[in-house]
């Protein structure tokens, strides 16, 4: 495994590196300003580059089951590794929302959690007034889809 830190070789690469620093610092300051959503948005765009934010990515019917599963895994890890409570809380909501989206849009269950645990998670998501309405609606549809699954 090649493991050296790349170093700027000429002015052009130094310029790119400088741009990278600029982007990273801007990103760091954005994290300061809206810490909860910034991390989740980064994860979302790593998986669906054209997504505007996590809510759009999850509610967009074009997201495939595979993409929703990748998003679910990313939010799941954020839920456990984040240093801040608001971010962990948001990650938990997004985690549930991806499961609901896969169920509602594709009829696929992308988790091994019990129906009882899922129903509770969807109910909490649907009742969370800090979530956008389209995410709360998705949670309600998820509960219906779970019932139909039996």
């Amino acid at each position, binding site marked *: *495994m090649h*493991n050296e*830190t*790349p*170093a*700027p*070789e000429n*002015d052009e*690469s*130094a*310029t*790119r*590196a*400088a*741009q*990278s*620093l*600029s982007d*990273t*610092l*801007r*990103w*760091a*300051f954005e*994290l300061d300003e809206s810490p909860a959503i910034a*991390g989740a948005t*980064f*994860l979302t765009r*790593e*998986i669906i580059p054209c997504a505007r934010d996590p809510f759009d990515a999850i509610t967009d019917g074009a997201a495939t089951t595979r993409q929703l*599963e*990748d*998003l*679910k*895994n*990313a*939010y*799941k*890890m*954020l839920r456990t*590794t984040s240093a801040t409570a608001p971010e962990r809380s948001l990650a938990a909501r997004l985690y549930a929302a991806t499961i609901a989206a896969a169920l509602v849009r594709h009829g696929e269950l992308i988790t091994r959690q019990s129906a009882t645990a899922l129903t509770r998670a969807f109910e909490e998501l649907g009742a969370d007034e800090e979530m956008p309405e389209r995410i709360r609606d998705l949670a309600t549809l998820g509960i219906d889809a779970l019932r139909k699954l039996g």
Partner: protein
Amino acid sequence: MKRSWPAVYAYIRASGRRSDEAMDLTQAFICDVFLARRLLEKADQARGRFRTLLIGAVRNYLADVHRRANATTRMPKGGISAIDDYKAKGFDVTGDESVGSSPERAFNARYVAEIIRVASERLQRELESAGDGVSWELFRLRVLHAAFQGDATGYDQIAPRLGIDKGTCAARLLTAKRRFANILMEELRATMIDPNDLRDEVADLMALLNNR
């Protein structure tokens, strides 16, 4: 402050000196100004930022070199162009903004590139000593390659190689990137004469870099 030397070299090189001349002048600057005139001690006594102080010191040093060369009419082999010649070529040794790769821009690009290098190496040491070589590999392939080689390896290639799914890759990269941002800030803070100047310094650097 060894990490500033590539930036000093870049400034001198962009001011119109040949590579070998720029190397000699960089070494001379380090001996004459850094060591003999104790620039760092002056920096501790002065208000302002180290980067600004350093860039001013290099500029003045080159002006001194130029004056000495003119006064004694002892031009080095290959010659040192007159300042007017630099200006005619679109270079700027006086601090004014100019089109193209001005010495100040070359200096700033190298300065921050060096900070990135130092911060990257710190991140690598931290992650690997914590047994998290996977996160370092993700950061190297997704962030550093994009910065230095202009392309980032896709998750479809990385995830199977590392044996983790795409979502977990992204989440681990987020953690590494956050740590990198913190290290970068620490490295920048270490170059501050007055720590309260950190935010201004970051804003200045971003403005400088975005105007390239």
